[in-house]
């Protein structure tokens, strides 16, 4: 005999400990089993795309900091690269190296936090998170040294970076790069073969390869599904064609693979950092660019491999000092497209973990 039960609807968020900010999911449950999920967002919408239409090209850089606030350097970088592409501004060699160093440090910091939060959502009582905060803290200190900021850097400039690195910066980064692999080993020792982690993440929230491509997934979320697609390798921007590194890819596309890909990307970032630190040349950190830049009429789509996926900027110029249209391709918003497919049939606890494995930042989704 089956007892008739009512499905019930739960508004998970916008105020919830594991929605990474002000995200809301309207979840329908049958018992504890998820039968429907609808992501809802916009609680952090600040209209950055509209605001940008009223600012000069340089004034937009601090706005991009506020998109993905856990990887602000990458946002800066993607934007200035799009403008450079649009206006044809050359970038000095040293600046490119500094950008790579910043971008990869940012990737380590962002992935550390993403992994830490993922394990936290699995129910570990903050311990992994605190361990990963330790390394993020060191990276933030490095950025503090570089540009005086810890969260919103505003460091990149059109045609270079705002300051050359202070002399004490490189030894500090070198030391960090020396230490980091042992810390990653420590995380792996604690997490990778933990029985409960395995039983909670293996086979959970599988994103098939074809669906991942069709749904425009990007970043570690795409690579975990077995697609070897990394813009640093497939469409090498900046100076990424000079570095040797591997692209870690998962096989099953489950939560565990996403964790595994992130951990291994941290290792690859360390490799890139080692090479960049060894080769960095002397020279200017910034080319001469007019204060009120007027790019020629045209449009450009510039994209970089940000920690959370493909971060694209679509800019339209009408030869004035402000862009005619400024659009951001939010990687994590597009990754959320398949949340329903991933979560239906799993339990509430799995829904939280699947959502955590996508690693969203609401600043970028809501803009």
């Amino acid at each position: 005999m089956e007892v008739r039960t009512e499905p019930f609807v739960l508004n998970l968020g916008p105020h919830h400990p594991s929605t990474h900010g002000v995200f809301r999911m309207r979840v329908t449950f049958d018992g504890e089993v998820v039968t429907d999920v609808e992501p809802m967002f916009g609680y952090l919408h600040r209209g950055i795309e509209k605001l940008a239409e009223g600012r000069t090209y340089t004034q937009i850089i601090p706005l991009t900091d506020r998109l993905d606030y856990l990887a602000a350097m990458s946002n800066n970088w993607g934007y200035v690269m799009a403008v450079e592409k649009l206006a044809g501004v050359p970038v000095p060699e040293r600046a490119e190296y500094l950008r790579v160093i910043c971008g990869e440090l940012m990737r380590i910091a962002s992935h550390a936090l993403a992994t830490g939060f993922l394990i936290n959502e699995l129910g570990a009582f903050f311990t992994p998170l605190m361990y990963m905060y330790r390394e993020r803290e060191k990276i933030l200190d490095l950025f503090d040294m570089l540009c005086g900021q810890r969260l919103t850097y505003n460091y990149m400039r059109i045609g270079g970076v705002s300051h050359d690195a202070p002399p004490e910066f490189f030894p500090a980064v070198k030391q960090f790069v020396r230490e980091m692999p042992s810390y990653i080993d420590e995380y792996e020792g604690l997490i990778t073969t933990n029985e409960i982690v395995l039983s909670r993440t293996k086979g959970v929230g599988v994103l098939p390869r074809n669906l991942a491509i069709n749904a425009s997934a990007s970043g570690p979320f795409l690579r975990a599904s077995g697609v070897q697609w990394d813009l640093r390798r497939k469409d090498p921007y900046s100076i990424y064609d000079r570095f040797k590194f591997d692209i870690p890819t998962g096989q099953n596309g489950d939560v565990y693979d996403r964790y595994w890909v992130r951990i291994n990307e941290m290792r690859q970032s360390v490799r890139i950092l080692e090479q960049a630190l060894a080769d960095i040349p002397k020279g200017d950190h910034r080319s001469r660019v007019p204060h009120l830049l007027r790019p020629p009429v045209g449009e450009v789509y510039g994209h970089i491999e940000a920690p959370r996926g493909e971060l694209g900027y679509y800019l339209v110029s009408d030869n004035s000092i402000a862009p005619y249209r400024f659009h951001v391709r939010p990687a994590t918003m597009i990754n959320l497209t398949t949340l329903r497919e991933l979560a239906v049939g799993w339990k509430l606890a799995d829904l939280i973990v699947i959502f955590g494995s996508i690693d969203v930042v609401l600043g970028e989704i809501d803009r």
Partner: protein
Amino acid sequence: MAPLPQNPGGHSAVLQQALPPDWPLGNPWLHFITFTIIAIAFGMLMIIAFIYVERRGVARFQIRLGPNRAGPEGLFQAFADLIKLLLKEDIVPARADKLVHLMAPIIATVPALAIFAVVPIFGNGALFADLNVGLLYVVGISSIGVVGVFMAGWGSSNKYALISAMRGVAQMVSYEIPLVLAALGVVLFAGSLSLNTIVDQQGIPYLLLQPLAAVIYFLAMSAETNRSPFDLLEAESEIIAGYHTEYSGMKFALFYVAEYGHAVAASALFSTFFLGGWKGPFLPPVLWLMIKMLVVFFVGFWVRATLPRLRVDQLMGFAWKGLLPLAVINLVITAIEVLFWPTQSMWPLVPVNIVIAVILVLLWSRIFTLGGGKIEVKQGRVEVKGAKTVEVKV
């Protein structure tokens, strides 16, 4: 219907029976009042100690310092928190079931303290009441706590609280069984349900004689007291604060006390059953008990600081497929040992039982699977194979 058999000695005979023979003041009521105060004071003291030890200890696990501002080394942090909670506004949700909502914290807290009535704290016989059915009393009383949890979940008119309450009931009911079966092994060895006798009989700590029962008891006890990795009731990342999401002020403080009170009581019971309770050389018995409780609790929050949480179906599977068969096997083996092993030489039994425990645990880890996984959903409903829909007339 036949009349119920009357207690021959009447009410006072029961009181006298529970009274230790060397009680100097004669009046049983005076004894009960004294020991009520002592038991509650001891319980509260240990709760505050546990809160302090856990907050500072977990902080060390997490490379932080923990609270160290209030008082020397943060010793008064718990008191500061308590004062803050006392002074906070008491909020009752508009659509709450008021009476149930108000009663839930009390019902959740009282059993945790009431367990101390039968735990020998200060040495042989120095306890509130030496019940000859002490274990039954403990099992019965500690199950009442879940009623408070369920009332809180139901009465708050909050969906997170309701999910938590449902999980709580399922979890408590499931883990009660391996818990009791594990404790029965100890009872067989001691030959008594009285906690005082159980301690008295422990020449060798039962941890050594009953290693498997100790492991099962510890795991089931963690689940009963909602400690990691079985803390599904208060799974912060999933259901916020669980059943006490809607509680604030003093009522929340009572739940906090209840949570740690259950942990204190469970540690005390584990020490009593397996570690020889108040027994120990040199130090006064009460100190020995406190040390043993803290050691047990330390293992508990060590696990908490290390492991992630299980999913709800894995949790149930672990109880029914993992712990319950092991507990039954352990009980059978123990019964055979008690029947046939000569009671004079118990020490040779220690390595035998440890080997049996290791073999059984390894064997079970091979054949036991957590199970669970994706469930088919069709048209917004969970599909149950072979289920027939029956119209329920209301």
